[in-house]
C-alpha cells in the first residue's frame, strides 16, 4: 500500500539578513527530512547545521566543491569533530540553492547524516555529508550561514 509522503512541514521567506534560524518542534513521525534553501546570501559562507541546540564538538563533515577551474574540499573527521557540520554553500553575489537530506533523524540507534548539495551560478557546486554524533532523535535544527533577505527555506518530512 503506497503512502503519500514528502510532506511540507514549514517554509519561511526571510525579511532581513540573519546568521541563524531554527526549525523547532520537528515531528517524529517521519524518518527523513529534506531541507531546501533558495536565494542569495548577504555574503559568501558555508551552510551549516546544529541539532537539538548542541553546541559541543559532536559533528563531523566532508565536502567537495568545484568552481569551474579546480576541485577543492575539506573535512573534520570523527577524530577531530567540529561544533557544527557543513551541509551546503551560500553565495553573497548570486542566487543559489541547497538541498539537504537528513536521514534517520528520528531513529535512536543511529547517528544522523545530512547529505547536502549546494548549487549556484557564481561560486560553483558543492556536495557534502554532515553527521551529528549523537543517537538522540532530532527535534530542532539550527541552520547557520549568511542568509540574505528574500531567501526561502522549506522543510519536508519523508516517511519510511
Amino acid at each position, binding site marked *: 500500500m503506497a503512502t503519500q*509522503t514528502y510532506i511540507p512541514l*514549514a517554509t519561511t521567506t526571510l525579511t532581513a539578513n540573519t546568521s541563524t534560524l531554527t526549525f523547532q518542534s520537528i515531528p517524529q513521525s517521519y524518518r527523513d527530512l529534506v531541507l531546501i534553501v533558495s536565494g542569495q546570501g548577504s555574503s559568501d559562507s558555508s551552510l551549516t547545521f546544529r541539532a537539538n541546540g548542541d553546541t559541543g564538538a559532536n559533528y563531523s563533515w*566532508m565536502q567537495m566543491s568545484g568552481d569551474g577551474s579546480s576541485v577543492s574540499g575539506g573535512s573534520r573527521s570523527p577524530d577531530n569533530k567540529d561544533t557544527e557540520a557543513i551541509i551546503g554553500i551560500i553565495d553573497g553575489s548570486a542566487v543559489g540553492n541547497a538541498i539537504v537530506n537528513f536521514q534517520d533523524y528520528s531513529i535512536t540507534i543511529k*547517528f544522523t547524516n545530512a547529505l547536502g548539495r549546494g548549487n549556484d551560478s557564481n561560486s560553483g557546486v558543492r556536495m557534502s555529508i554532515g553527521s551529528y554524533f549523537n543517537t538522540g532523535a532530532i527535534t530542532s535544527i539550527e541552520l547557520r550561514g549568511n542568509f540574505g533577505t528574500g531567501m526561502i527555506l522549506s522543510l519536508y518530512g519523508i516517511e519510511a
Partner: protein
Amino acid sequence: MSPFPLGILAASGGVEAVAAYDLLETTTLASDASSVSFNGLQAYTEYKHLQVRIQARSRRASGSSGDTLALRINNDTGNNYANHALRGDDFGGFRGLSFSVPNGDSIRLETVTADNAEANENYGSLIVDLLDSFENSKNKTVRSFGGRNAGISLIGLGSGFRNNTEPITSLEFFAISANTAAGSKFSLYGIKG
C-alpha cells in the same frame, strides 16, 4: 532571528497538486543479511521513477573503514553493468577522485560505513534514483549520492548503467565485502511522471 515552530506554511493557490512521491516499501534489517531485495516491482508501473533511500552499515571488519554497496537489477548477475563515480575523501588530506567500472556484474553505488570504523551507531547514507524504471525502450540508468563520516570520510556522486531495456522488476542491494548490518534501512519510493 528568532526560532520558528513548524506549521508556518506559506499560503499558496492555483493548480491543484497531485501527490507524486509515495513510500512503497521499507526494509529495516533485524539481523545481518547478505543482501536486501525488493521484488515484484511490476506492481508499481503507475510510477515513472523509483528512489531508494538507504542508511546502511557493513560487517567488514578489516582493510577499510568502508564497504561498497552494489546494486543488481532483475537478478542479472552477468557483466552487463557499468558505472562512474566522482568522489572526495580525506585520506591523508582532501583527495578528489574519479572512478569507472566497465562491464561489471553490478552497479557500484557508493561506500557505507564498515565495522572496521568506529562506533556501531555510525551508518553510511545513500540516495539512489532509478530513472524511467518501467520503460521498455531504454537501457536503465541509475544515479547515486552518498557518503559517510567514519574512518576515512567520503562523499560521492555515482552514475550506473544496465545494458538492458527491460522494465525493472527487482532490485538487490549488497555490500561487496561482508554482510549488511542489522539496523540498516532501505526504503523504496515511487515518483509519478
